[in-house]
Each structure stands twice: as C-alpha cells, then as structure tokens.
C-alpha cells in the first residue's frame, strides 16, 4: 500500500517557537516551544489525523504548514507538481500559488465569516483575488461549491448571523473549496458544533474528499472523530510527535504509553463494560521549560531511568508505517 503513494508535504525537523520577551529592550528570556522538531511525510489523498491534549501544538503545526506562522527552524517542502520547494523560501508568486493549493478550515465558524459582509461578498472576495475576472464565472464557482455543501445559492444574500453553526461551518468549507485546493487543513472543524451537526459536517467532508481527491490534515482532540475520519494518525505531545500509525493499527495496538492513555479515555456507550481507565497524573508540562529527556517521563506509568535523561528518537518499522518515539521499543540498545 505504501509504494505508490505520492508525497505532498515533506516536513523535516519543523520547529515553531514563540519568543518570550522581557523588559524595555525586549530581551528574549525563553521560548514557547509550540512545535518542536516534527518530521513527517504527508501523502496525497490521505487524511492525516493529528491528536493530542490542549497545548500540544496541533493548531500551531497546522498553521505553520500553512505558513500562517513562520517556522523557527526546519523545512516544510511542498510538492509543486512533482517539484519539492521549501515553503519558507517561497517567492511572492509561489506563495500566491501555494495559497490556492492549500486551504484551511478554522475551528470557530462563528468568527470565520466577516459579520459586516454578506456571504456573497465573503465568497466573492477570494475569487476576485485569485483572478476570476467576470461575475458570471465567479457565480458559477460559487454555485458549484455551495452544491457540494448542500446550501442553496440564494442564501448567499444573507448575513452570517442569520446562519446556524453547522451552516456556517459548511459555508466556511465551501469558501475554502472555491480556489480548488489540493490540501485542506482542518483545525478542529467540528469541535464548536453539537454532536448531531458534527456527524453531518464530517460526512460531508468525507464526501467532498472523495469527490475532489483532497488531502486532509485533520486536527482534533476528539479521538472518536479522528478515528472516523483519518487514514493515518499522528499523536503529538508537547510539540513532538510521539506516535504515527495507520488509524486501524493505532486503535488496535497503541504503542506509546501516552497514546494508550488517550485511547483509554474514549467513553464506551455501555454501562456493563467497566473499562479500566488509565488516568494520567498531573498536567501537560509547560512548553517553556520542558522536562529533560523524554517530555512525557514525569507522567508516564512505565517510566525508566533512561527516560529522564535521554530524549527518545523516532523508531520506525514497528510493523507497516507504525512509528513511535519511546525507549520501551528501542530494544535496549540505548541502555
């Protein structure tokens, strides 16, 4: 399965740090290491789910890949029709092209549409910017994307406050699709919606993916949502990737203790099964002063001596595409 996959994003050692300044002279006293050394390939047409607790750098990762945040270090190479180019070194024109190919759906549908503008204007603007000259052409595209998200074209005349959350999120998806992107980064697209609407939006997104052969980067903290959507899942903890695996493999056989803890937190709708839940002690450490060694060691139920001193490397080939960064699986060769 892994042979004929085409890579669309090649991410190497990506770091996004936010400096903390102090005093009148803006001396940098530390960094919030939101994304700290993420390396991974994203394949064309897949749905890569990104999960983790709050503050693990999931959203920052998405924004960095989209170049809404500038990476501090590392490379993000984008497949420009077979040719890999580093997005941090894009020229203005390349950036503009890139904006067309990679689009984003944001978490909060309530503020993602300009409240002062009619939906029509909000939809028209990106098309104008991206050089769709005539009004007839623009409206044709608008009708196409609206059909995809099941919204009647005459709703375009309304203002955002006249729509419900689910409708707004569908409108946001439609707007992102207007420029015919190849990659759609979804930053918790359903977390602001209630459960019945979540299913509706998720099904719609799956359908659209099949229809347009999109690549999804699906950021979420709801594990069941990710399980439903993703082909492959990346688990993040404190800005680092701890485990990457096919969705099925990850849910059946989680390897990293953090992943195990996360999965044990999924509620099971059956009062008779008393699932043993593994509760993590404490909170996510501050991304400013990360613990030495493995970032997870102070909460890990299987912590060893080596974990306190040495940061584990990513161990590949744990069957299929399964990768894990944990000393438990290094086969003792580090010890």
């Amino acid at each position, binding site marked *: 399965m892994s042979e004929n996959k085409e890579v669309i994003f090649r991410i190497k050692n990506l770091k996004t740090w936010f400096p903390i300044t102090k005093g009148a002279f803006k001396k940098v006293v530390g960094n919030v290491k939101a994304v700290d050394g993420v390396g991974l390939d994203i394949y064309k047409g897949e749905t890569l789910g990104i999960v983790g607790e709050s503050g693990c750098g999931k959203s920052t990762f998405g924004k960095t890949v*989209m170049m*809404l945040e500038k990476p501090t270090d590392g490379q993000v190479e984008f497949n420009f029709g077979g040719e890999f180019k580093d997005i941090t070194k894009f020229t203005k024109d390349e*950036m*503009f092209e*890139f*904006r*067309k190919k990679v*689009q*984003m759906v*944001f*978490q*909060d549908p309530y*503020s*993602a*549409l*300009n*409240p*002062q*503008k*009619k939906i*029509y204007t*909000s939809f028209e*603007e*990106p098309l104008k*910017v*991206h050089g769709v000259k005539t*009004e*007839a052409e623009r*409206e*044709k595209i*608008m*009708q196409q994307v609206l059909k995809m998200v099941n919204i009647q*074209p*005459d709703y*375009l*005349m*309304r*203002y955002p406050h006249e729509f419900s959350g689910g409708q707004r999120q569908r409108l*946001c998806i439609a*707007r992102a699709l207007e*420029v015919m992107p190849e990659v759609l980064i979804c930053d918790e697209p359903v977390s602001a919606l209630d459960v019945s609407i979540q299913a509706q939006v998720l099904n719609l997104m799956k359908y659209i993916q099949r229809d347009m052969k999109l690549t999804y980067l699906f950021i979420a903290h709801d594990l069941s949502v990710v399980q439903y959507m993703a082909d492959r899942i990346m688990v993040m903890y404190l800005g680092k990737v701890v485990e990457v695996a096919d969705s099925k493999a990850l849910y059946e056989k989680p390897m990293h203790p953090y992943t195990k803890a996360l999965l044990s937190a999924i509620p099971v709708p059956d009062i008779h099964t008393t699932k043993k839940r593994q509760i993590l002690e404490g909170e996510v450490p501050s991304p400013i002063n990360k613990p030495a060694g493995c970032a997870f060691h102070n909460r890990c139920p299987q912590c060893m001596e080596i974990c306190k001193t040495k940061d584990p490397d990513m161990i590949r080939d744990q069957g299929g595409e399964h990768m894990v960064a944990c000393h438990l699986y290094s086969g003792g060769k580090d010890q």
Partner: protein
Amino acid sequence: MSDSTTVSIKNQNKSAASSLLKKNIRKFMNNKLALFGLIVVVIMTVACVVGMIVGVDYNTPNLTALKTPPGGEHILGTDTIGRDLWARVLYGGCYSIFIGVFCAVMSSVIGAILGAISGYFGGKIDQLIIRISEIFQAFPQLVLVMMLVAIVNKRGLSNLLVIFVLTGWMTTFRMVRNEFMSLKGETYVKVCEAFGMKKSRIMFNQILPNVMSPIIVSTTTNVAFFILQEAALSFIGLGVADSTPTWGNILNAAKSVSVVTNQWWVWVFPGLAISLFVLAINFLGDGLRDVLDAKQQ
C-alpha cells in the same frame, strides 16, 4: 439556466441589502431625540447654505440702524456697526458648519488610516505612531493656533483647519487602533490571510467596515466639538479673520460689557445657533450609535 440563477442571486442580494437599510432607518425613526437632532441639523444646514447661495448681505453696515433690536426690517436686529444679524448668523453658519464637518471628517480619515496601520502591524510601527500621537496630544491647541498665527502672520480659515485636523485625529486614532488590535485576531482575518489577500485589502476592505460605526459616531460628536472650538478661538480673537463671519466671530462683538448688558440680541442669537446645532449633532450621534452598534442588535 445558470444565467437565470445568476441573476436571481444578485437580485436577492439587493433586496436583502435594502431590507437591512430599511430596518436601520426604522430603528432610527423610533428614536425621537435622534430624529429631532437630524431634523434640526438638516434645517439649519440647508438654511445656511441657501442663505449663502442667495447671497444675503452680511457685510454692509446700515448706518441708519445701529444696534436695532429684533423686529421689523432686521429680523434679528443689527450689531454695533449696523450689520444685519440674521444675514450674519446664516452666513456664519456656513463657515462654522463647514469648519466642523471638514475638520471632523479629515481628522477621522487620518485617525482611521494611522490607527489601521498601527493596530494591524503592531510592533515598532505601532510604537512610533503612538509616540507621535502622544507628542501631538501634549501640545495645547491654543498655543499651536497662536504659534501658527504668529508664523504665517495672518488669521485665516486655513490656519484653523490645519490646526484642528492636526490636533484632532488622536482620539479616533486610538479607538481605531484598539479595535484593530482585537479584530486582527478574529478568524475571518486569518481566513483572508490564508487566501493570500493583500494586507491593505484586509485592513481597509475587511476589518475597517467593522470599525466603521464607532468612527461615524465619533465623527458626528467631533463636528460639535470643532464648532465649539472654533467659536471659542474666534471669541478670543484667534480664529478666522474678522471679515469672515462665523458664529464665533459674531459672538466676538459681544466681548464688551455694554453690549452684553444693553444689546442682548447681538450675542443671544449666534449663541443660540451654536448651542442648538451642537445639541442636535450630539443627539444625532447618540442615535447613530444606537442604530449602528452591532453589539446591541
């Protein structure tokens, strides 16, 4: 087929827009005080402009009728050198209203542009513009006017306009800057960035409409403020040259005690005109705030 639907989208669009406008107008009409303000402002402005166009004679002294009380040939009486007060109030209104409106609009435009730049980019640019605005704020307007009068060595309308605009943009600037700082974090701004829109387009096309209503409201109240400023400066003789009548200049004649005690009509009518106009403008501004403030909808 797609053409017919295309037309329908646009048409629907128009009807929706007009319905929102209608709703706002209805809301405004329900506010009696604001409606009163609007009517007074419109009547006074129209009267003054008509007076100017018709060319009422405001400057020729009628030597046979010095200090006539109101009534008869001179509706509002004549001033100390026999000029018709009614004509002067009308003519002066044009200048006063023009000064108020022009300065308020210009300072809002400057304040909005600088505020947008400052708030959207932040960082060093923001710091620089903030410091500049603080320097301007630190100068008393009166001293600046006196300085300019001394430098160009003549009193005139343009002096006043320049000074008012230069010293008047800071409040709008601060307000717009603060609004921009909070609005630039909104998701729709990020969406526009993700679409690769130009920064100027995001600033003035996307964010600015959301700041428009406080700007409009502050512009109306600024009109009142500048009219009062002009009156105050002209009263102490630093405003527009004496030959040009403004409401403040007419009042200037009432500086002497004998006029205040004996010829009440010389200062009551221009004073009334100023007060009424300023009051009406303030009512209008309040009403506009109620209608335009999205948070109250």
